[in-house]
């Protein structure tokens, strides 16, 4: 396979060319170059995926193959989940570029160049088999993302969001550096397969456990698990819409991908005997994140911030799924991530339509105004249903796998967490659909139903228009269709299950990476959807609809509830929301607490 390095190099070359010619190139030329490069990368990633499904393989940069199982150069170690994530990222970059065609000034090619670098970083991050190389792409992704967040420099929100994002993620990256140093001192290796091989067979000592905690907390900062999640809502809510698509659709999930990759390639051997305790830690973290994100999501009126918190809630669910440390759990996450990526991207695009047309993303300001664009409303509602994992769609298959993985792992309460997350996030989006596109519910948030002060700021666009480019609606419609049918294509979900089982084969990974042997895997089992799954998921969707209806039509009832009953929860909720203060000092204090908690819990439980 000669093309292995190209998904990274082609966009880099494209970006360099765009910058070189940016003083003269007309807008159309930037669009064409960037679009062509993005499509090329989609094709390249798909070819890699097709090859890796049956034969995962390692590619050694510079031809530096391992000598006596000692890795010398940097490898791209390509298996189907890695290549699949790269493909998802490439597809989302391509759609984001198409979406921004009719919408965005582009700042003389800078935007296009940065998007291409973003693409290169994500592809490299997914494909690499070298721990330090992964960090390099993590930093590249970060550097580009900070700049893109601040794209609207004339507004305050983007600057604040970018600053908090950059500082939080940099601190996370430095934790990863220290983790890498610890592992390098122990194993003398940077290739993940080799580190894992060197750690095998000995029980994990504090050094290995602390290295794991540092690496995990660093990558979880990108993924935005509680309590290192604060930056995400600030950044995702203010970045330009085409960028939000990538942030929420795939970048946060890449943080989790790194956690899974690191666990199964590096730590699975050494920590195998303590898998149950590690499972408890990760599932606990995921549960808190899922609920926290869900509650925050439901209390937002700023639509992009609402979607940002729904991403946090889903990250929590995905973290639970990975934390179950089983093939079925991981397969559920992978399936859901694909469905969620398309779905969340489409929702951000539809909010972009509202912003483009009405110049605001405030739920109450938009009350009833969406009636003139019913199509958008229908799509938005579908997006809400997909978010609640309505039976029959891709996210539903992912959720069903997660449910059965949770029951397998004797965590019978975990499916309830997933349902709560579905109800809160799906319900929030459905509520917005009702209020904005149907004109249902209160037009003003009355004082006694007010959950907290409004966080209103204008961003991106402040002028309203009376037309919407059809492209801005067509692209999200296609993405929603993709989010529905992907899981229905025969063979996709069983294929993902096999891929997840292969992904978790620690010993086989070391063999195919370091010795170049063709991978031999035990046949993996695939699951069936039971009636129970349909009922359970239907419960989530009905719950989301009911919650939305209750908020839209039942707000007068709330007034009748005596204050003594409502007061304490409201005070608690306000205090809880105040934690998201936007103050970088707070965020870093919480980051330190998160690192201490994860490290401390790991040191206590994993020995």
């Amino acid at each position, binding site marked *: 396979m000669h093309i292995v390095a190209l998904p990274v*190099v082609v966009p880099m070359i494209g*970006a360099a060319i765009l910058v070189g010619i940016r003083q003269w190139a007309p807008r159309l030329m930037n669009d064409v170059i960037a679009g062509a490069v993005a499509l090329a990368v989609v094709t390249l990633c798909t070819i890699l995926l097709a090859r890796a499904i049956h034969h995962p393989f390692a590619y050694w940069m510079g031809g530096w193959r391992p000598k006596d199982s000692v890795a010398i150069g940097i490898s791209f170690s390509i298996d189907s989940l890695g290549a699949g994530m790269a493909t998802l990222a490439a597809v989302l970059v391509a759609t984001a570029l198409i979406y921004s065609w009719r919408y965005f000034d582009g700042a003389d090619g800078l935007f296009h160049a*940065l998007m291409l*670098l973003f693409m290169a970083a994500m592809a490299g991050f997914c494909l690499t088999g070298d721990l330090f190389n992964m960090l390099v792409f993590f930093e590249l992704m970060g550097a580009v993302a900070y700049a893109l967040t601040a794209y609207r420099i004339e507004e305050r929100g983007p600057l604040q969001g970018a600053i908090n994002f950059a500082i939080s993620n940099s601190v996370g990256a430095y934790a990863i550096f220290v983790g890498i140093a610890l592992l390098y*001192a122990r194993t003398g*290796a940077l290739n993940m397969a080799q580190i894992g091989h060197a750690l095998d067979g000995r029980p994990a000592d504090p050094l290995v*456990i602390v290295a794991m905690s540092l690496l995990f907390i660093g990558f979880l900062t990108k993924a935005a698990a509680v309590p290192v999640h604060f930056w995400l809502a600030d950044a995702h809510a203010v970045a330009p819409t085409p960028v939000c698509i990538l942030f929420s659709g795939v970048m946060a999930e890449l943080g989790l991908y790194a956690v899974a990759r690191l666990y199964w390639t590096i730590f699975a051997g050494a920590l195998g005997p303590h898998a149950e305790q590690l499972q408890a830690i990760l599932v606990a973290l995921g549960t808190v994140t899922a609920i926290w994100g869900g509650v925050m999501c439901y209390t937002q009126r700023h639509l992009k911030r609402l979607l940002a918190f729904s991403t946090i809630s889903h990250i929590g669910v995905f973290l639970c799924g990975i934390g179950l440390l089983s093939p079925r759990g991981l397969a559920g996450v992978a399936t859901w991530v694909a469905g969620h990526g398309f779905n969340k991207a489409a929702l951000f695009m539809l909010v972009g339509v509202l912003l483009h047309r009405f110049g605001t993303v405030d739920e109450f300001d938009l009350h009833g105004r969406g009636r003139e664009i019913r199509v958008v409303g229908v799509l938005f509602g579908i997006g809400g249903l997909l978010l609640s994992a309505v039976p029959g769609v891709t996210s539903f298959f992912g959720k069903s796998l997660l449910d059965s993985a949770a029951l397998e792992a004797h965590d019978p309460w975990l499916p309830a967490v997933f349902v709560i997350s579905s109800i809160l996030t799906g319900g929030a989006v459905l509520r917005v659909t009702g209020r904005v596109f149907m004109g249902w519910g209160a037009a003003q948030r009355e004082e006694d139903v007010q959950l907290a002060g409004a966080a209103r700021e204008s961003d991106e666009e402040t002028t309203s228009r009376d037309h919407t480019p059809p492209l801005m609606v067509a692209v999200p419609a296609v993405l929603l269709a993709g989010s529905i049918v992907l899981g229905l294509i025969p063979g996709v979900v069983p294929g993902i299950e096999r891929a997840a089982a292969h992904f978790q084969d620690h010993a086989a990974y070391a063999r195919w990476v370091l010795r170049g042997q063709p991978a031999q895997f035990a046949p993996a089992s695939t699951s069936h959807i039971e009636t129970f799954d349909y009922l359970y998921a239907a419960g989530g969707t009905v719950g989301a609809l009911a919650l939305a209806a209750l908020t839209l039509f039942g707000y007068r009832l709330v007034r009748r509830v005596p204050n003594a009953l409502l007061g304490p929860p409201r005070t608690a909720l306000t205090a809880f929301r105040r934690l998201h203060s936007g103050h970088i000092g707070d965020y870093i204090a919480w980051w330190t607490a998160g690192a201490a*908690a994860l*490290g401390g819990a790991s040191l206590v439980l994993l020995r």
Partner: protein
Amino acid sequence: MTRTTRLVLFGIAAAGFGVVLAYGLAGLPAFGDYQGVYGHVIDGIGVTERHATDLVTAINFDIRGFDTLGEEFILFGSVLGVVLILRQMRGEHDRPRQHEADEHTFAGASEALRALSLAVIPAILAIGIYIVVHGQLTPGGGFQGGVILAAGPLVVFLAGRYLRMRLVAPETLVEIGEAAGALGYALVGLSGLVLAGVFFKNFLPLGISGHLLSGGQLDVASTAVGLEVSGAFLVAFSEFLDQAIVVSGSPRS
């Protein structure tokens, strides 16, 4: 949170995090006892197979040259970011005040200092180029030399002539140079793929150890990096300079 709450939270958290770090770092071999395989394997390879005497450069531009590709584009992307963030917005009436821009004096440079500054420019450029091209032999390489090269035009500014610095290093040209450097480094990798079948394959003749043209692609890669780094730092400097020189109209919106 109030400042006190924040500091109390941080104090408790930092104590815990400190303990975690201490546990982890205590597992390291004592300082100076390191016996890792990777470094020793490479010590052998670098000289015998790459004819380079500075192993750090051999790793940087060849054995782990792919990391450097990412690193160069981090620099490239960040500078794009700086340009994007500091770009002039419509309606921002930031224009250089003519007299200040013309004969801008930074921290009151005296005539003697200016003369001295101008005199050191050739020396700076010579040192920079020397460090870029001797990367495979002695400490240094594209990055270190590149930053030094960027300091050259900066000295013109220190000598008091802002506009003349723009003349010495016009921004468009610098930006193209930067892009060409980044592109060049990517092409070094790509040429390995096209001409030798593997990305980043070092296929140029290796030369004699210790000579200027040894190490195959190392020199080419180092030069490309030098061009990119000097361009990148110059663009960043000049963006910050633009900000510092102009006097703002009405910034607070």
